[in-house]
């Protein structure tokens, strides 16, 4: 009989399926700002620490093209003077060093295709193509205060469309700023009114036209913010909401990223392979044609 304590869970050595390191790009650009920013890193061995600070990406070329115009992105090497390496005099770079940006005007047009190319010595060139989608035809927003329970404030938010789209579409809804609260609230992503709508980032959710109430032409959402005091709650809530249509593929990508990050160490989640629209690399490239709405209760 074996009674070793490490019998049931033990460290093993295995030849994991390793591929050649690839470039991984997060490039979600927006048509409503001049500043275009994206993020480049690469795949590393899963059993090694990611040492974000020391890698220099200055030898990486990033270009955006619409077939006629081409712009190059600058490498934003930001030195984080707070973090130090093992040697006291070694200044390390923070994770922000993976940033690339460009603040030149670039013409974005609905329906037009754009190509992003990322090149780095020793790596396969990563190329992705995307299309600018039309802006979302929102008629109005309404925000209604529901109640405060144990410092959790609940609001009904209704997003009314001018016309209900005939085809299924996906939208990113982001609560950009909230005024009226002393503290910046956190919205739960467990939203039972807008079912199956994962948070894809802090304060951003993904909804689809499946959720539209045909009678009211609107999507009803329940917002819950925590750490709200009675005084906070008595103030009038005003929020800025950003809405952009995203493609089915982008929605799938965002949902999967969310699920991966939420399901770490959960054995009851089926394994997930993250999609990419890059050829020769990983990550996602998208251009959002979003709009910002001020909404007050």
């Amino acid at each position, binding site marked *: *009989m*074996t009674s070793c304590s490490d*019998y*049931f*869970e*033990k*460290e*093993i*050595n*295995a030849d*994991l*399926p*390793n*591929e050649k*390191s*690839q470039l*991984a790009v*997060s490039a*979600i650009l927006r048509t409503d700002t001049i500043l275009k*920013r*994206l*993020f480049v*890193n*690469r*795949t*590393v*061995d*899963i*059993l090694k*620490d*990611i040492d974000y600070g020391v890698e220099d990406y200055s030898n990486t070329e990033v270009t955006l093209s619409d077939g006629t115009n081409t712009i190059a992105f600058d490498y934003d090497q930001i030195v984080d003077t707070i973090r130090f390496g093992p040697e006291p005099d070694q200044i390390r770079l923070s*994770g*922000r060093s*993976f940033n690339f940006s460009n603040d030149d005007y670039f013409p974005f047009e609905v329906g037009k295709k754009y190509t992003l190319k990322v090149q780095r010595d020793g790596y396969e060139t990563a190329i992705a193509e995307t299309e600018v989608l039309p802006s979302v035809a929102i008629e109005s927003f309404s925000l209604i205060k529901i109640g*405060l*329970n*144990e410092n959790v404030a609940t609001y009904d938010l209704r997003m009314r469309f001018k016309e209900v789209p005939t085809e299924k579409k996906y939208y990113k809804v982001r609560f950009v700023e909230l005024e009226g609260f002393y503290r910046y609230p956190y919205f739960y992503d467990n939203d*039972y009114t807008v*079912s*199956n709508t994962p948070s894809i*980032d*802090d304060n*951003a959710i993904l909804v689809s036209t499946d959720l539209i109430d045909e009678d009211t032409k609107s999507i009803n959402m329940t917002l819950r913010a925590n750490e709200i005091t009675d005084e906070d709650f008595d103030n009038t809530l005003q929020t800025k909401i950003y809405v952009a249509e995203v493609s089915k593929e982008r929605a799938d990508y965002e949902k*999967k*990223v969310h*699920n*991966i*990050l939420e*399901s770490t*160490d*959960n*054995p009851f*989640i*089926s*394994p*997930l*392979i*993250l*999609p990419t629209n890059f050829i020769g690399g990983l*990550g996602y490239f998208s251009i959002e044609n979003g709009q910002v709405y001020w909404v007050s209760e």
Partner: protein
Amino acid sequence: MKKSDFYIEKSLFSPANTYSFMKHILIFYTLILSVSHLYGQRYTISGNISDASSGEMLISANIYDLVSQEGGSSNEYGFYSVTFPTGEVEMHYSYIGYESIVLTFNLLKDTTLNIALKPSTVLEEVVITGEAKEKVENRTQMSTIEIPIKQIKKIPTLLGETDVFKAIQLLPGVQSGGEGQSGLYIRGGSPDQNLVLLDGVPVYNAAHLFGFFSVFNTDAIRDVRLIKGGIPARYGGRLSSVLDISMKEGNIKELKGSASVGLISSKVTLEGPILKDRTSFMVSARRTYLDLLARPIIKQSYKNNDKTGVAGYYFYDFNGKINHKLTDNDRIYFSIYSGRDALYQNSKDIDTENQYFEDNNLNWGNITSSLRWNRLWTPKLFSNSILTFSRFKLGTDFTYGQRVNDTLASGYGLDYGSGIRDFSAKIAFDYIPNTSNSIKFGFQIIRHHFTPGTFDLSVYGKDGYEKEITQADIDANEYALYMENDMKISDNIKLNYGLHGSGFQVNNEFYSSLQPRVGLRCKASKSLSLKASYTRMRQYINLLSFEGVGLPTDLWLPATDRVLPQDSWQMALGAARTFEEFELSAEAYYKDMTNLLSYNEGSGVFETGDWQDRVSQGDGKSYGFELLLQRKQGRLNGWIGYTWSKSDRTFENINRGRTYPFKYDRRHDISIVANYELRPNIDISGAWVYGTGNAVTLSGEKYRVAGSDLVFSDNDYNRVVQNIQSKNNFRMRDYHRLDLGISFKKEKKRGVRTWSVGFYNLYARANPLYIFLGDKEVKSEDGIVRYQPTLKQVTLFPCVPYVTYKFDF
């Protein structure tokens, strides 16, 4: 062979005019489907074959006329019918483990012979002394394995809990899931593709204790038959296999019983006549009792934390059956199975002024029942009419809260429920016009009711509310109509052909399917035959489950207007041969499956929303080669099985649309099962299994992804994802295990007592249950501790001993 010790009834059959219409229809079928045989005057010998000691009907007993060299076998209800030319016949009746008998007489009219065969020995019933039942090379049906229940009981198992499923997992073409799991993966199919029938009633959740034990109490079972391919037309509704389990009918001669005590459960079985030779009963019950034994310790543990409470797990099951002989030609049966698993943890603070409480319960279980009427209409026509009910239900409730002075001040509760419920009616006929044709036909209708999963969330307190998220229940009707013929074309060629038609009505959608089934047997020599089969199957209901984890939360769901029914076709080629006491069969198969159902990548167990949004449909294929060498008789009996197989899946929305290996794709599977009678009262049994490691999904690389707005915060440093190249791209280490057991029997004044002791995983092989990416502490030279990623393997069972005590009376 003896000519004396048998029980015989003879009577002249007089067909009633009221059945003439039925006969005309059957004659029509015969003309169309059968090769005509023009003979002189012929008469039929029919009846049933039973165990002389208990009255239990014997399935697939062999009947053979030594004069005409023709014969047949009894059906699943013990009925047989053979037709011979008038004149002398020398009827030979035999069955595995029983003494054969020969009866010689002049056949001058239709004759009923109810035969009762005596078990060959009292103590060792697996050992064969007479000729076996129909030899493997003589059967048209291929890919079919029967294991005597007495042999199943001898196979050493985990904690000594004898288990039908664990025995079946040792057969070629059948794979288990994870370590200790009782799920059956047959020829690349998933467990929901197996039609598991208990007395003709489908059992939807065949597992106790999260899959470690099956729900079938071996003391209540009479017969087990597995059909992996070449599925006859009388079966339908599942893609991969049929596991037909019959409960004991109850001893019609005398009161018998058994009681056993094991490490985790106790069982008691009682059977006997209510009216001698007319009515019998059988009841059997089993319950685990770890929760009862551990209760005082758990209570004390709560008490030490100023709480009162209980926690535990148990399962029980109950089997019951009544069998009544209405007339010589009519029998009715009523059988019931009820089983339940319960996991509970309930506690509260001792302080009642400000009391926190917690009630967590998870319950699931099946109930099945059937009412069956068997009738012998004419010596050649037998019918089985059956009404069935089957229900699987899961219920959970989790409540956490605070009571202030006995008033509920705050808290929350979450209830979840799901299930499936069926009613069905079926009528099946066996018509045996002559020894060259055996026709089966019938009709079935099933009313399904699905409960896909309902959440009920309650928030208690001042601003409490209740919210129910219900997915609409679904009702559906399933219809099946079939006809098959087992036809002898010549002395060397037999053909089994048939057609299974089915329909499924759900909401406003109606699906239908015609499924041809063909099996061919050609005898190359007296002891060698070549076989082939083609089977097309359709499945209208699906089990939505997570690969590798057999949870009661798995959902049974129907095909809908969005989810298409699953289809498959399978082709098999094989050879079968008997070498003296050994049977050898070799088979190769190819199976193609379409519209298989799977959760989308990343879907979770308790997600809300329409389940149809969380699933994908795709295709699968499986092919392989199986070898089985079996010795059913002698002091040393058992089998050696080997399987080489390959199975994969292709889903548009999974693995980026690329084909990937099925999780239970195993290249090699070997099983060696042996039972040796050391002395008449001592048996040694062993089983050794080997299998290629299960496929798992692992990544070798990782990278970071930014948030959707590229707004970086400290949290973004944690947005690390694995670069998984392909699903199921890695193999865990190979699996192997040796189980060994020994049993000692002793005749006592009032019965036979048996002590069994043994070991599961005798050499404590650390077989992997799963592998995950964990971390380990690493201390640098300057004493800073950090955590480094590392691969870890989880193993469930080391060497586990068992001991059981049983008393048969």
